[in-house]
C-alpha cells in the first residue's frame, strides 16, 4: 500500500514538478511546517523551536529517530511518519540552507551569571554561548527560545520520555532542577 502510494507520488511529482524544478516539491512541503515553526522556520512562539539554519545532519537525525520510533515526541512522531526518507532528507537540507536567526531574549545580569555557571557542562559540545557546536550533529542554542530549551531539558530528565543521545541524557539529569530555567534563559539571551 505504502509503496504504491510512494510510487504514485513519485510519478505525479515527475509529471508536475520535474519540468520546473525538483526542489519545488520540498518547498511546498516545507511551507506546511511554518504553521508551528514560523514563517521560513523562524519561530515567534516560545515553546516552538526555530528550525531554520540548524544543520542538515541534526535535522535529519532527529526526524529519522522520530520516524523509527527510537525517539519520543508528543506529536512529531505522528507527523513525520507521513513523509518518505527522501522527503525528510529534502526538508533537512531545505531548512539547513536558511539562515540561523537567533531571537535574543533579555535576561538579568544575575540570571546570566548563574546561567553561565549552570551551562558549563554544555560548553564542550555546544560552545560557550551555544552558538559554536563542535559537531554537525549538534544543534545551535544561542537565541533559541528559552521556553523550548527548558521543555527539551525536561524531556531529557524524565525517565518516562524516551530520548536517544546518551551524553545529553546523562548531563541533563546531573543538573540541579533549579538550574534548568536559568540555563535555558542563558542560551536564549545569546546573540552569537
Amino acid at each position, binding site marked *: 500500500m*505504502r509503496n504504491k*502510494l510512494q510510487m*504514485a*507520488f513519485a510519478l*505525479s*511529482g515527475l509529471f*508536475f*514538478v520535474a*519540468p*520546473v*524544478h525538483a*526542489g*519545488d*516539491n520540498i*518547498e*511546498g*512541503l*516545507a*511551507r*506546511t511546517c*511554518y*504553521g*508551528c*515553526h*514560523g*514563517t*521560513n522556520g523562524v*519561530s*515567534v*512562539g*516560545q*515553546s*516552538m523551536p526555530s528550525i531554520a539554519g540548524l544543520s542538515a545532519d541534526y535535522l535529519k537525525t532527529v526526524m529519522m529517530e522520530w520516524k523509527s520510533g527510537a525517539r519520543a515526541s*508528543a*506529536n512529531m512522531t*505522528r*507527523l*513525520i*511518519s*507521513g*513523509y518518505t526518507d527522501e522527503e525528510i532528507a529534502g526538508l533537512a537540507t531545505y531548512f539547513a540552507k*536558511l539562515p540561523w536567526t537567533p531571537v535574543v531574549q533579555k535576561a538579568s545580569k544575575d540570571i546570566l551569571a548563574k546561567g553561565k555557571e549552570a551551562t558549563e557542562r554544555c560548553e564542550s559540545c555546544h560552545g560557550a554561548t551555544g552558538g559554536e557546536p563542535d559537531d554537525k550533529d549538534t544543534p545551535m542554542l544561542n537565541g533559541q*527560545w528559552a*521556553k*523550548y530549551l527548558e*521543555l527539551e531539558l*525536561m*524531556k531529557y530528565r*524524565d525517565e*518516562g*520520555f524516551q530520548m536517544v543521545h546518551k551524553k545529553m541524557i546523562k548531563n541533563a539529569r546531573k543538573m540541579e532542577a533549579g538550574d534548568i530555567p536559568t540555563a535555558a534563559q542563558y542560551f536564549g539571551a545569546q546573540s552569537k
Partner: protein
Amino acid sequence: MSQINRRQFIKALAAATSVSALSVPTLAHAKAKARVIVIGGGYGGATAAKYVKLLDAGIEVTLIEPNAVYTSCPLSNEVISGHRDIKTLQMGYDGLKKRGVNVLQDLVLGVDRAKKVVTTQGGKKLDYDALVMSPGIEFHYNTIEGYSESLIEEIPHAWKAGEQTLILKKQLMAMPDGGKFVIVVPKGPFRCPPGPYERASLAASYFKHSGKTKCKVIIMDANDSHSKKGLFNQAWKAMYGWEKDGLGGNGMIEWVKGAEGGKVIKLDAKTKTVSSDFVDLKADVLNIIPAHKAGKIAVATDLAKADGWCKVVPMTMASAEDENIYTIGDSCVAGEMALYGNPNANFDMPKSAHIAMTQAKVAAAAIVAKINGLPTPQPYYANTCYSIVGDDYGFSVAHQYRVVDGTFKYIKEGSGVSPMAMPDKSPVPPIYRKLEAEYADGWLRNVMADAFG
C-alpha cells in the same frame, strides 16, 4: 518589471519568504501583471494574500474584509474560562499592508463571475484575474424551533470569536455554584471539530478552581460521536469525575449523543430550556452553537451547491464551479465527509485554522504558477490542532493529505491523535500532556504571525 521569467519564478519559490529577496515592493507606477482579490481576512484569506505577494511581488493583491481587527477562534475557549486575555488573540492588518497587500475594509456584496468583477458595499467595483473566496461560515438558526439571531446576546454562540466570546465568559463567571452550563452542538460538519468538548473541559476547569464544584457542564450533541472522544473521556475521568456517556452521571461533565436525546430541536428562550425528543433541560447558562454552512457570499455566487459547502479541485483549491475562483477554509469541503469510528474513512479535511492556511498556500502557489504560465506545483495539506482540557493538560490531532490521481488522499501514516496509552499499555506519562499544552501557545503565535505578519 513585466513578466518574471521561469528562472526567477523558481528562485522565488525556492526562496519562498526570504524577506530580503521578496519584500522588495513593486515600483509604485509599474503596471500590475495580474490582479488577485481575496474575500475574507481570517486565517485562510490573510495567508492567501500574504503568500501570493511573497511568491510574486508583481501581482496586485487586494484583501477585502469588513472588520479592522481579527480575533482568533483557536484558543478562544481559554478566554471563556478566564485562562487567557482576549488581546492575545487579536491581530490587525498592518503586517499585510507592509508586505504590499491592499487591505480594503469593506463588505463584498456580489461577484460577477462572467465579467470577473467584485462589488462592495462601499460602492467599489474591482476586477480580478483570480479570486480567493475565504468567507468562513454562515450560521443557520432555523434548525432549532424558537431560536433566532436576535437571541445571541442572551444565548451566545461564541463560535465566531470576539464580543461573543466575552459575553459567554461573563455569563459563566456570574453563574452560581450548582448551576448548569449547557452547550448545544449542531450536526457536523462544523468548524473546529474538538471545540465544543474543549469548551466543556475548560469550563469545568474554571468551576473546579473557583470552588463552584457543584456546577455541571452538559453537552447536548446532535452527533453520535465526536473528535478526540477517547482522549476527552480519559481526561474528564481523571480531572472532572466523568463516568460514562449520557445524562445523570456524578461528574462535572455530561455528554449526550444525538441518538440518545442529544439532538436539540426546540428552545424556550425565556427559561433557557432546550428540548430534544427525549428530554427538556433548563440551563443557567446556555451556549447554542448554530448549524453552519459556507459563508453567505459563497452561496450567493453559486459556489456552494446543494449540501451548502464549496467543492474544490484538489490540485489547486480552485472551485469545482469556477476555475478563476479558489474556495478555501471553513467554507469548503475537501475530501469525503468525516465518519467517526470508521478507521478506513478517507476523511474530509477538518475545518481548522491550520488546514485553511495550508489550503491558502496551495491556492497561492497555484495562482502564481497559472499567472506566470507555469505548471501547477504539487500540493501538500496538513493540520495540527491542539485542545486544552485543564492545567498542564493538552493533546492534539494531526492530519496530512496529498493529491493522488487528482483526488485527495488522507495519509493515515502521518495523521492521528495523541496516544491514549503507551505501546506497552502503560499510562501516558504526564509530561506528554504538559508538552502539548505548552505547544498549543507556541503554535498559536506562529500561525497568527504566518497568516497576518
